[in-house]
């Protein structure tokens, strides 16, 4: 069902604002309706950056931290989280500092490496670089020249020295001051790339050695800091909890920004679940008694968020509803209505008792040990129930890990009882069962639509647009009754039922049209819906097809593994044992894989039958989810104060 929502107005003193909103956040009870002119909070950007910093710090440490084992998120109390914040901010600062220092050291080392690379060609130059500078009459030109051009320097009126190897050679040219222009223009034509020595003393070789030592030193320091960073890896959980605490504070601050305020008070408007009314009052009273609280009905033009609440057995199926879309507020929550059909259809599609047992046990273990929440919990619950359904449906229509029931029950008195219908030998009977279930499913949807119309006072809509279709379809089915040995009078009744109902649809479906021709045309068009009914019924054949495919694939696997592979091994004792092990491992693996694929297929095809064939007849979607101010933590689950 859809939980009634009230509009909540809370007015309190600004001094109590943090505490009151914090109390509401703790019970996740109120979705704040932002006021048009929100308050600018100076703190919010800071709080936001705190979250980001902690996020990136914990992300940095992720590769040094111990691998998290499978398991639920750790439970923390709200106060423990809040207390973890200052320490984790310090830790975060330390991590950032380490990262910065390491990056700084690496940059320095890189600069030196670049310098070494530049000096490397000059390594054989035995002169002090600082000494190579212009004198009164001598000019020096230094640079790099493509190797193939070096020979062309021979004719130069200057002293030329060439160093290094490779594609570019380092050249040092000394010439008279008066010849400088001439020499320079000539070597430029030879593509000389001029290079000025960095302001270093000593020979290039000595400088390279010194620089290499510096690089080694810088690297060593960076490595030491890196080791410290790695040793902080084990502290990562603290950072994660800090991030959660920062998230909580940020959300609270953002929530405050969405409330209105006067000089001394704040005004919060929001949506709250009616069933949490007492809880809200108790939470506020625990803080202070100086506040004003009012619950009122939503106004006509407002759409409150939709919250679903169902009994524990049905609640997991809310995940299926959510996958489609939440119902509009004030419409029907279809979850409890489709749940029995989902249960049955899923089992009939998977239809292998062995898979059913595995699925039910697997999902139950997942729920027990992983303690998932939200969507995952719902899906696991649906699969667990689906597994249980499969156990029974497998007995009625299927097999056990691909082995047929007569083989399993051989020699027992009920040897040939199961499966009740064997879809591979009686496909038409199985198809009929599926179509029959489909018709029940769709009639139920039409009845819901009829009921909704009657409740809204729309009797025409109830009878013409909805109930008449039940008469038409059942009339058509009754026409076939004599073929199955029922009295012929049923066919006559069915015939007239269908004709009269169709006539009613023809005459009245276009009742909103004034023009008589348009009205009949629209009625006739409506009758064409019979085609879509036919298509919808056929759509349920997928139950048969998927059930069949699970069963036959299981059978094929067993034949391939046990009849072919294992037989090939049979010979002496040793080979038989080896063959048995290989075949067993292989067949378990493939069965698990096929089970996973089949389960996925069954889940989505069952969902589709609800979404298209069932929801299509009455469902009003478009509800907005309820997003209360809450502890939206990422790494822990908040439990207790």
């Amino acid at each position, binding site marked *: 069902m859809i939980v009634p929502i009230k509009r909540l107005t809370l007015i309190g003193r600004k001094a109590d604002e943090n505490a009151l909103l914090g109390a509401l956040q703790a019970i996740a009870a109120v979705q704040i309706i932002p006021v048009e002119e929100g308050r600018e909070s100076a703190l919010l950007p800071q709080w936001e950056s705190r979250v980001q910093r902690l996020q990136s710090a914990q992300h940095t440490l992720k590769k040094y931290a111990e691998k998290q084992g499978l398991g639920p998120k750790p439970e923390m109390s709200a106060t423990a989280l809040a207390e973890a914040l200052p320490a984790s901010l310090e830790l975060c600062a330390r991590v950032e500092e380490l990262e910065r220092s390491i990056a700084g050291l690496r940059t320095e080392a890189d600069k030196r490496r670049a310098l070494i690379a530049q000096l490397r060609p000059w390594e054989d130059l035995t002169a002090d670089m600082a000494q190579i500078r212009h004198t009164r009459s001598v000019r020096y030109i230094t640079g790099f020249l493509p190797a193939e051009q070096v020979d062309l320097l021979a004719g130069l009126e200057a002293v030329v020295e060439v160093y290094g190897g490779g594609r570019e050679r380092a050249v040092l040219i000394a010439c008279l001051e008066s010849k400088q222009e001439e020499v320079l223009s000539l070597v430029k034509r030879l593509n000389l790339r001029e290079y000025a020595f960095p302001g270093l003393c000593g020979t290039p070789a000595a400088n390279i050695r010194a620089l290499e030592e510096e690089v080694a030193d810088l690297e060593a320091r960076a490595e030491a800091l890196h080791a410290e960073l790695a040793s902080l890896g084990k502290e990562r959980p603290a950072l994660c909890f800090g991030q959660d605490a920062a998230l909580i504070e940020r959300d609270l601050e953002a929530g405050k920004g969405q409330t209105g305020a006067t000089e001394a008070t704040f005004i919060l408007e929001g949506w709250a679940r009616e069933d949490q009314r007492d809880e809200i009052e108790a939470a506020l009273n625990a803080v202070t008694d100086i506040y004003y609280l009012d619950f009122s009905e939503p106004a006509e033009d407002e759409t409150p968020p939709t919250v679903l609440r169902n009994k524990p057995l049905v609640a997991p199926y809310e995940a299926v509803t959510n*996958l489609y879309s939440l119902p509009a507020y004030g419409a029907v929550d279809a979850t409890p209505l489709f749940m029995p059909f989902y249960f049955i259809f899923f089992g009939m599609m998977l239809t292998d008792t062995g898979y059913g047992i595995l699925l039910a046990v697997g999902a139950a273990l997942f729920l027990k040990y992983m303690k998932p929440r939200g969507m995952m919990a719902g899906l696991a619950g649906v699969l667990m129930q689906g597994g249980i359904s499969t156990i029974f449906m497998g007995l009625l229509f299927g097999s056990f890990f691909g082995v047929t029931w007569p083989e399993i029950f051989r020699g027992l008195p009920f040897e040939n009882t199961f499966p009740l219908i064997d879809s*591979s030998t009686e496909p038409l009977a199985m198809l009929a069962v599926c179509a029959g279930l489909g018709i029940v499913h769709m009639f139920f949807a039409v009845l819901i639509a009829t009921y909704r119309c009657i409740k809204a006072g729309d009797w025409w809509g109830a009878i013409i647009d909805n109930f008449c279709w039940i008469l038409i379809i059942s009339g058509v089915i009754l026409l076939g009754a004599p073929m199955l040995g029922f009295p012929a009078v049923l066919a006559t009744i069915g015939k007239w039922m269908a004709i009269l109902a169709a006539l009613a649809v023809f005459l009245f479906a276009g009742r909103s049209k004034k023009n008589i021709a348009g009205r009949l045309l629209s009625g006739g068009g409506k009758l064409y819906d019979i085609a879509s009914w036919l298509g919808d019924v056929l759509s349920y054949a997928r139950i048969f097809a*998927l059930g069949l495919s699970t069963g036959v*694939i299981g059978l094929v696997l067993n034949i391939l593994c046990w009849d072919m592979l294992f037989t090939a091994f049979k010979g002496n004792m040793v080979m038989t044992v080896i063959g048995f092990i290989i075949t067993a491992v292989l067949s378990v693996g493939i069965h698990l894989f096929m089970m996973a694929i089949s389960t996925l297929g069954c889940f*989505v095809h069952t*969902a*589709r039958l609800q979404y298209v064939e069932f929801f299509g007849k009455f469902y009003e979607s478009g509800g907005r989810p309820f997003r209360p101010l809450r502890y939206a933590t990422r790494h822990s689950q908040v439990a207790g104060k």
Partner: protein
Amino acid sequence: MALYESLGLNGQLLAAAGAVFAAMWAGIGSAIGVGHAGEAGAAVIAENPDHFGSVLVLQLLPGTQGIYGLLIGFVIASKAGLLGAGGPELSVAQGIQFFLSALPIAFGGWYSAIVQGRTAATGIAMVGKRPEEAGKAIIFAVMVETYAVLALLFSFLMVNGVQV
């Protein structure tokens, strides 16, 4: 009849062609579809590895056609006695029946797997942007699968109807 014989065609051969068609075409389609979806998946995972679960589900969806094809191929092979020695003697007419019954899943499976792969790839891109809507992306892909299921169903009914 003389024409068939001059071509060397007999019932077994035609049935074998049907079994091969079913497994082959549906398998090719699934390979293309899964591959296409996988490429899209890798792009999304590169940005956000957390979505691996829903992306994998979407990638797997076009894979079922190959399984359906294998299934029909196997049913034909076993019914026509192609898996071992000593099967029934098949007439050419029966062989043609087997062959025709393989066609729905061969071609329905082949093409639906390819377009389902495309739908899944787009769905995967959607998961990259709005991970909370993964369910809807899956439903879109499953809408395509319907026709593969119907093809499987009809192929099966046809194979089942062949009197051996």
